[in-house]
C-alpha cells in the first residue's frame, strides 16, 4: 500500500513517544526503578556471562568438592567441584532465552485471537471461550510437564509449548478488554461507517487494548519464569550439565546442610529476576492506569 504516507507516519511517532513516556513514568516509581534495574542487570549478565565467568561452568574438579566460598571460588564449589559463582552467572540464560521468545509469541496469538473474539462475539466466541475455560482448569504446570516429558525436544519444544499454553489466559484477558472497547461509541461509529472487521480490529481495537496486552505480557513473563524454573527444579527443564538455577538448586539441596552456598547463590539470582519482572509489571500497570486500586482513587 502506498497510501499510508502521512497519516501512519504521524501515528507512529506519537505511538513511540507515548511508550517512551510510559517507560519514563515506570522508571520514576520506586518499584519500577528497582524492577527495571534488576531486569536490566539480569539481561546484561545473561548476554555477557560467557565472556566474564571466572571458570568453565561444566569443568569438574575432583579435589575441590563442596569447597566453601573463598577468594578462589567466590561462592564455593558444588558437589562435582564446579564453580558456583560461574554457574550462577550463566544459570539464567536458558530461562531468559526461552521465556523471552515464548512470551511475545503468546501475547501475539493470544492477543490477536482475543481481539477478534471480543469484536466478533457470537457462536465462535462461545465455543472458544468454553474451550479456554476447560484448558485453564487443568492443574498448574501439569500439561507443560506432560508434553515436555513425552516429547523430548529440548528448548524448542519447551518454547513452543510455553507460548501455546501461556497464550490461553491472554485470550481471556484481552477478549474482555476488547469487548469493553467494542461497546464504545467510536467502534459503533466505525461499524456504522462500514469499515471492515479487520480494519476495526487493527485501527480501533488494537491501539486501545495494547495497554492491557502489555501489562498482561509482563505478568505472563513473570509466571512463565516461575514455571520454567519449577520445571527445571523438578528435573524436566534444561539438560545437564548446562547451568540453570532451578536445576542447580535441586542438585545442591541434597548437600544443603554441608554446603548451603550451593543453594543460596542460584536462589538469590532466580528470586531477584522474578521479583524484578513482577515489580516492573506492577509499575507498568500503575503507569498505564490499569491498576484497579489506583484507578478508583485518582
Amino acid at each position: 500500500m502506498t497510501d499510508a504516507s502521512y497519516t501512519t507516519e504521524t501515528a507512529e511517532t506519537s505511538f513511540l513517544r507515548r511508550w517512551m513516556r510510559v517507560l519514563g513514568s515506570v522508571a520514576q516509581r520506586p518499584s519500577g526503578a528497582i524492577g527495571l534495574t534488576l531486569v536490566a542487570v539480569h539481561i546484561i549478565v545473561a548476554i555477557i556471562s560467557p565472556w566474564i565467568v571466572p571458570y568453565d561452568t561444566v569443568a569438574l574438579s575432583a579435589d575441590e568438592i563442596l569447597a566453601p566460598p573463598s577468594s578462589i571460588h567466590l561462592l564455593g564449589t558444588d558437589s562435582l567441584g564446579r564453580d558456583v559463582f560461574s554457574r550462577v552467572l550463566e544459570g539464567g540464560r536458558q530461562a531468559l532465552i526461552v521465556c523471552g521468545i515464548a512470551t511475545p509469541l503468546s501475547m501475539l496469538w493470544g492477543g490477536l485471537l482475543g481481539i477478534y473474539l471480543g469484536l466478533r462475539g457470537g457462536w465462535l466466541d462461545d465455543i472458544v471461550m468454553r474451550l479456554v475455560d476447560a484448558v485453564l482448569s487443568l492443574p498448574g504446570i501439569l500439561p507443560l510437564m506432560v508434553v515436555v516429558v513425552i516429547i523430548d525436544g529440548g528448548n524448542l519444544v519447551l518454547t513452543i509449548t510455553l507460548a501455546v499454553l501461556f497464550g490461553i489466559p491472554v485470550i481471556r484477558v484481552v477478549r474482555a478488554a476488547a469487548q469493553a472497547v467494542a461497546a464504545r461509541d467510536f467502534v459503533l461509529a466505525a461499524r456504522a461507517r462500514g469499515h471492515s472487521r479487520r480494519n476495526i480490529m487493527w485501527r480501533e481495537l488494537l491501539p486501545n487494548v495494547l495497554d492491557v496486552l502489555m501489562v498482561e505480557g509482563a505478568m505472563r513473563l513473570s509466571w512463565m519464569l516461575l514455571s520454567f524454573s519449577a520445571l527445571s527444579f523438578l528435573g524436566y527443564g534444561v539438560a545437564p550439565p548446562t547451568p540453570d538455577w532451578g536445576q542447580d538448586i535441586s542438585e545442591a539441596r541434597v548437600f544443603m546442610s554441608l554446603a548451603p552456598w550451593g543453594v543460596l547463590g542460584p536462589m538469590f539470582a532466580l528470586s531477584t529476576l522474578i521479583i524484578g519482572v513482577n515489580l516492573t509489571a506492577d509499575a507498568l500497570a500503575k503507569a498505564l492506569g490499569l491498576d484497579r486500586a489506583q484507578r478508583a482513587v485518582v
Partner: protein
Amino acid sequence: MFELIVKRLFLGLVTVWLVSVVIFLGIEALPGDACTAHLERDAQGELLENCREKLGLEKPAFARYMDWASAAITGDLGVSIDGQTKITSEVALRVKNSILLAAGALSVGVPLAVFLGVIAGLWRDRFPDLFISTAAIFAMTIPEFVSATILVLIFSIWLGWLPAVVLTPADAPALEFFPEFVPATIVLTLVMVAHIMRMVRSSVIEVMAGEFVQMATLKGVPYWRIVVRHALPSALLPAINVVALTVAWLLGGVVVVEVVFNYPGLGRMMIDAISDRDLPVVQAITLLVAATYVVINLAADMAGILLNPRLRTQLGRR
C-alpha cells in the same frame, strides 16, 4: 434465580465434559501412545503388543474415549499402566492427604489474608500498607521451592525446630502427619495469603473511594461503622472468587511443594506418574483436578449470586 442456578450447573457440566475431551485429545495428540511412552526403548514386539492389548489401544479413539468417560462417571478411573494399582483407591488416599494440607493452609491463610488486605487497603500507601504490600510481592514471586528451601535451611537445619521432610506413609491417618506437614503448610500459606491479600486490598480501596462511602461520611456515620457496615460487604464479595481459585489450586496444583517436602498428596502422585510415563494415571488425575476446579468455581459463583443482593434480584426477575 432457580433458573440461573440450573443454567450455571449446566454450563459447569459442559465445561467438565469439554475438559475430558481436551485431556483425551491432548494425550492423543502426543506422539506415540501410552504404551510406547511407558516402555520407551523396549517398545517393540511382543511387549508392546501385550501392553496395547491390555489397555485396549487397538480400539478406535472414539470407543476408547467412551469407555474411559463412562467408567469415570461411575467413579472408576481405571488401572495404572503396569496393571498393579487401581487408580481410584490410590487417588482417594492422596486426595485425603491433599485436603489435609489445603485445610491447614486455608484455615490460617484466609482470615489472615482478609485481615491484612483490609488493613493495607484502609491505610493505602502508608506504613502498614507499604510493609504488607512489599512483603506480598516477595511472597508471591519467590518460587515455592526457594521459600521451601530457605525454610528448611533455617528451621530444620540450623535451628532444628521442624522436620525437613515427611516420612509418614500415604495411608497413615491424618493426625500422624502432624507436625511433619507444618513446613509445607507454611510455604503454601505464604503464596496464598499474598494473592488473596492483594485482591482484598484493591477491592477495599475501590469501594472506599465509592460514592456511597462518601455519602455515609456525609450522613455522619462514624468511620469504623462505615468500614464494617457499608464498605466491607461490597468489598469482600469479589474475594470469594479468589478464595475459590486458591482452593482449587491447593487441591491440585501444588506439585512442587509436595515434591520438596516429600508429602504424599495428589501432586506427588501426579509427578510420579509423569516420571513413570504412566499416562492412564496422568489422565485420571488431570480429569479429577480439573473437575474439582470447575466445581469449586461454580460453587463460588453461586455463593456470589446468593450473597450479592444486586445479582440476586436481577436473576430473580428473569
